[in-house]
């Protein structure tokens, strides 16, 4: 297969952007990526555009947004499609972009993910995300993603002895990174005492889905991110001289049962393990080769569980790594250097693209002061769809 490099990256701030138009936000991030790649004037070299989004139809009353985006940034007659794969839409769109280039169908591809979820009330946004559950056996009951994450957490606590304090420590670590990220939705630090074990903690950090509290889960966010990819063997690489390309070394994806109750062991996230295994195999790498990772912590329990499924830590032991500081920026294996979904935010369609944006920033050595990992070689991103029923893992490397 052809080698594919990331040659341009763009990002909007994440937060409440509901006063802006969805396609405008996505266009802003895309234009940012064109500028980063230094091809705004030569943008017509882009053969194909993949747009990741979940809720345009339901939340923003807009459809066919890939066509709209292409027109807004004057990329016609590029091929353009929208990819909807729940919260894993971003990495799925990247996988489509990678495949289009690797197959020879395209040389230069743009991948843009975006979402405006705060155009509706939190009540409605919660319902919107819950529509990815099984309609008859789950959604109808009023079950939500936080409800399943809470039941997962309770089982994990029972089996491995995880404490609420350790969960809070993950959030504190993520916010320590997020405050240094100019794109973060929640750019402030929190102390352990502020969210756990103090009289104020019960007020500040209220229960959302017992045992999960506010600081155990990501905010509802708006925002967009964009990447430009190019085949390293293409003559069009001559346009991308400004910065060295970052290689997409491996991409793997996998699915698991739609109904959570169908999983023999509800604590096993098989799609995470298999997607990582496929990405490792394609990259010719293993867990020990990874310098840092962006893991889909829509709920902080997932940062722990995913880090175990991809082989960084043994089952039930990730909490020890957090306590020992191994996953901090200056630790042995920094996790969620961007602040993760917890602090940076989680605009569904943008998230997978944003995770890879962070991999590129780190691998280029361009991360902001205080959150740059020391000389990283390989970064991993895990984009987790549904409650683990559709997962995409991407490994990027310095060329």
């Amino acid at each position, binding site marked *: 297969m052809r080698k594919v490099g990331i040659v341009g990256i763009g990002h909007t701030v994440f937060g409440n952007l509901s006063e802006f138009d969805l396609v405008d936000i996505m266009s802003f991030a895309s234009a940012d990526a064109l500028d980063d790649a230094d091809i705004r004037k030569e943008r017509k070299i882009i053969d194909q555009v993949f747009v990741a989004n979940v809720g345009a139809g339901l939340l923003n009353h807009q459809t066919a947004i890939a066509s709209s985006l292409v027109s807004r940034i004057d990329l016609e007659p590029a091929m353009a499609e929208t990819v909807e794969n729940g919260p894993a839409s971003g990495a799925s769109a990247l996988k489509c972009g990678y495949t289009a280039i690797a197959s020879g169908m395209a040389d230069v591809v743009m991948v843009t993910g975006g979402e405006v979820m705060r155009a509706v009330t939190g009540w409605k946004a919660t*319902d919107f995300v819950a529509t990815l559950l099984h309609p008859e056996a789950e959604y*109808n009951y*009023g079950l*939500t993603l936080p*409800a399943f994450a*809470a*039941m997962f957490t309770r089982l994990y606590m029972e089996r491995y002895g995880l404490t609420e304090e350790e969960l809070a420590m993950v959030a504190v670590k993520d916010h320590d990174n997020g405050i240094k990220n100019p794109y973060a939705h929640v750019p402030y630090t929190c102390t352990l005492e502020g969210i756990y074990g103090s009289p104020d903690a019960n007020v500040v950090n209220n229960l959302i*889905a017992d045992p999960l509290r506010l600081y155990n889960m990501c905010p509802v966010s708006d925002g967009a991110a964009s990447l430009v990819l190019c085949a390293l063997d293409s003559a069009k690489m001559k346009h991308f001289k400004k910065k060295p390309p970052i290689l997409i070394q491996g991409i793997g994806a996998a699915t698991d049962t739609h109904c959570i109750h*169908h999983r023999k062991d509800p604590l096993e996230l098989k799609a995470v393990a298999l997607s990582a295994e496929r990405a490792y195999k394609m990259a010719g790498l293993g867990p020990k080769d990874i310098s840092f990772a962006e893991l889909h912590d829509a709920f902080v329990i997932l940062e722990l569980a995913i880090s175990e499924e991809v082989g960084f830590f043994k089952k039930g032991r990730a909490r020890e790594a957090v306590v020992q500081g191994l996953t901090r920026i200056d630790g042995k294996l920094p996790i969620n250097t961007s602040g993760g979904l917890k602090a940076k935010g989680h605009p569904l369609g943008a998230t997978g693209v944003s995770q890879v944006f962070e991999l590129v920033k780190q691998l280029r050595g361009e991360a902001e002061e205080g959150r740059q990992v020391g000389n990283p070689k390989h970064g991993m991103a895990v984009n987790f769809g549904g409650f683990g029923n559709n997962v995409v893992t991407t490994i990027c490397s310095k060329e």
Partner: protein
Amino acid sequence: MIDTDVVDFDKYRPAKLEVYAYKCPECGTLHYPVPMICKDCSARRDPSGVLFSSWEKVPLGGKCSLLSWTRLYALPEGFEDRYLLFGIVEFENGLRASGRLLVQDPKIGMKLVSKVGVVREKIGEDVYGFMFDRPG
């Protein structure tokens, strides 16, 4: 006067309050919710019963044990309760299901029984589903 031979009163009666598993006609495996292909023997289902057999509906419910649970405070649109309790249970036949919990002090592993009740109210339609409570 209403001609009871002509008016179908049955259609105005509430449906029997049951949640069903579906039995694969080839290998007998029970499924909940119903798939289109049996995971055990690959038999196909045809909801219309024209091309392939429609599968037998078997009432699902009874004694079960609680695998995990939560008390959800942030409910989605359509629910106006302050919170609701939810759980995942395993029935004695090995099938599992998610549903509403009626006990206020749940514990993993506790014994429960299922009932069927209104789990969501939509305009013009009540949605029935599992509710799990203490036995007796």
